[in-house]
Every structure is written in structure tokens, then in C-alpha cells.
């Protein structure tokens, strides 16, 4: 460390234990919590079982804390073993809900749907996905690489191949686009 560095005032570090990037899985029964804990720990996830915050009024007396960003990947892991949580909420604000507003822009030949920070655009006549934009998690460029150029029906859904909350937001845009184009 340089002398100047030593003299610099240290910033207050917010502990990861403050839970800013953690989420909670809420289950109906304690037995599901135990099963989910076993499955996730066996899969290498850093999780912990804890009591629910007071804002949570449903579910049993235990919840599982997990890295929130990786919600989509965690839920897929649980789904494979038939475990389905009642809900998933951020630790910092358990009353928050996933985005449920969509912005739709009609470009004539193309239609764009935005959910939160993710945008999906298709060519209306062929239903080919021509662009994916927005987002900040590393699965966004990956999802775009796999999905762009394929039709809505042929492309894998973000739920299948995404891993993060950005992937989850893209899934919502994808579902809304599918609802509008394939109904």
C-alpha cells in the first residue's frame, strides 16, 4: 500500500450481511424448506435458512436466503426437483414485487416490448427475434447471442437458458411478446 493510500480516509463498507443483494425464498411447509436447502447446498449455492422478516405474512416459519441476482437459476434448480416456493422477495424490501408493467412500441414492421430494463424486438411478419437490448447482467449478451435470429417459437425461452434477474425480466418481455403475437 502506498503512503498516500494509507493516509486516505477509509470509506464505510456496507457488509454483505446487510442483505442488499440477497433474496428470500418463502415456502408453505417447513419440509419444503429442508428439501430445498439440501438441493441448493448440494448444487453449491451459498444459502442459509433463517426466520422470515415481519413483513412476510404467508408461508411457514423458515425461509431460505439466497443471492437475489441469480433468482432465475435458483428457481430452475428447484423446479427440476419439483420444489416450488410460494414467492421470492428481496431481503432489503420484502414487499417489493417483480415488475409487471410493459412498454410496447410499434415500429410498423417490428414490435418491441420492454419489461423493466430489458427490451425484445421481433419482426411481425416472420416472428423472428431481431434484437435484444438493455440489461446489465452477463447473461444478457449470452441470451441475445442464442435468441436473436430465431423465431419466437424456435428460440429457447430466457427461463430455460438465462440465469439472472435481467434474464427473468427478459422472460417477462418474451411472455408478453408471445401473448401479443401468438394469441
Amino acid at each position, binding site marked *: 500500500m502506498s503512503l498516500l*493510500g494509507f493516509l486516505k480516509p477509509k470509506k464505510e463498507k*456496507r457488509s454483505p450481511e446487510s442483505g442488499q443483494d440477497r433474496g428470500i425464498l418463502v415456502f408453505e411447509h417447513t419440509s419444503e424448506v429442508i428439501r430445498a436447502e439440501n438441493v441448493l447446498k448440494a448444487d453449491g449455492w451459498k444459502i442459509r435458512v433463517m426466520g422470515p422478516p415481519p413483513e412476510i405474512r404467508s408461508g411457514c416459519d423458515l425461509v431460505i436466503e439466497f443471492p437475489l441476482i*441469480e433468482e432465475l437459476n435458483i428457481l430452475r434448480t428447484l423446479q427440476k426437483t419439483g420444489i416450488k416456493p410460494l414467492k421470492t422477495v*428481496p431481503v432489503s424490501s420484502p414487499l417489493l414485487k417483480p415488475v409487471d408493467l410493459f412498454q410496447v412500441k410499434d415500429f410498423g414492421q417490428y414490435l418491441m416490448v420492454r419489461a423493466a430494463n430489458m427490451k425484445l424486438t421481433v419482426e411481425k411478419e416472420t416472428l423472428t427475434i431481431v*434484437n435484444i437490448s438493455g440489461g446489465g447482467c452477463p447473461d444478457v*449478451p449470452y441470451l441475445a447471442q442464442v435468441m436473436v435470429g430465431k423465431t419466437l417459437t424456435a428460440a429457447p425461452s430466457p427461463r430455460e437458458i438465462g440465469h439472472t434477474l435481467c434474464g427473468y425480466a427478459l422472460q417477462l418481455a418474451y411472455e408478453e411478446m408471445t401473448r401479443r403475437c401468438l394469441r
Partner: protein
Amino acid sequence: MLAIVGTVPDQDFPLVTGEVLIEDGGISIRGKRISVNRGTSALLAAAAKTGEALKQPAPFGYLVGDIGLGDGSRRLYEYLTQHLEKCDFNTIAFHYLQPDVDWHNRVLFAVEEMSQRPILIADAGFMYAAKMSGQAAAYDLFTPDIGELAFLADEEAPHPFYTRGFILHDENRNPDLITRAYTHENAARCLMVKGQPDYVANRRGIIEMIDSPSEESMEAIGGTGDTLTGIVATMIASGIEIKEAAVIAARANRLAGSFAKPTPATQIMEIIQHIPGALLEILGKKSV
């Protein structure tokens, strides 16, 4: 010199550091070729093109493969905490990385140990982590799009996915959202908000609004925000003041887009190729 930190969507891509060069319509780092789509590769290509136009050194890249599992990002975070202290970059742009508050804080501490503190730019996942950590004010520039601005403005949201509807629902409230982001200390010293129009703002309010040329289809094209961050980062590293660089970069990105005659199906490399011409036109006019 400018450093750019981010990921490429290839799980097998190793952690690589080095100068990033434009090569055969893509970019290369240490002989490894990377195709340019959206994400950090688009930012790097735009930065390299801007550097060519401004006669600046090639950007220095810190890259690793990550498809959203976070493993690559965490390796890169760890590498940065071990190596940044000895570096002398004047500007660092952090980009598509798995948001992780603990690792973000460790990297920020490593930056504080550098002999000269660089100008810090955060975009994409690293900007999310910066906001979540409560350390947004440690940054000199955030470059959010509209959805991300709403996230910065929502003091409760841990990710744009959880932005509350009453904040998200109105795209025309950007000036209010900028104010709200600063009120809750969730914005960097300067903000460049990408949208229609683009805004350059700070704690005191909007400094400039840039709305022309306007190509509506740019919003749909993946990577147009990344190119804007690449242009502004290179201009800042060249010594141009942040606010001025942001205004010029916003105009140049729009003009490059306009030169490409885009549709919503246009791919980002078609726009990146026009960045030098756009900069030449804007900076040429400016010097007259």
C-alpha cells in the same frame, strides 16, 4: 489510459488482460478474437474506434467469460483486487459484471489504494452493484438507460426487476427521476441518461438535453447504450471534462446511428463503423 472491465458471453473464455484492437470487423485481445454484438465487446469496439479518431492509445481490457453464472465475474473481481493497486489508469469503466455487493466493495477499496485515483465510470451490472452498495457517490459517471434510471431513482429496488410501478410507469418523468436518484444518494457525480432524449445531469439538475439526430429504431438495437459508454469513456480518458465529453459522446452516438440508416433489426457493428466519421463531423464543427 483507459481500462475497461467486463465479460464476454462465452463460458470457456479465460481471464485475459491487455490492449484491445479492432480486427477484421471484430476486436482482439492478446490474439483472442471476439465478435462484437452487444455488451462489453460493443463498448470496447466503440472505445477503440473513438481512440483511433482521437489518436488515443488502445483501451486496456480486463475480460472474462461469463454467461450469467457469475463465476467468471467473481474471478475477475478477485484479479482486480490483487492487481489494480499497481496500475496507473486515468479512467476505468466497469461494465457487464455479475452484480455482487461484497466484491464491488472490495474492488472499490482496491481502487482507493491506487497511487492516483482514476475517474470511475460504471454501467450495466457493475452500476447495479454500486447502487446497491450505497457507494454510488464514489463514482464520477453512471450511464443508465431509462429503465435503469428508474431503478436508480427507486431507493428500495435491489435490481431493475424490482423497480416499483409508480416510478417505472412514466417515461416522461426523467428529470424527476434524476432528482430522486440524487436525493437518495443513488447517483454518481454525473449522470448520462441514454434515451430519447439523452440527458447529462448532476446533483444540481439537468445540464444538457441531446435529442438530435433522432432515429427511433436505435432504442431497439442491442448495444447502442454500450457504444455511448465506450465513446464517453475514451473522451474522458483523453482529458476532456466529463460533462463536455458526455454531451459530445451523446451527439456522436446519435450521428453514427443516423449514418447507419438503422432499422430495429440493425446490428451494432454497423453503427460502430460510423463512430469516427460522426466524431470528425462533430469535433470538426466544434473547432470552427
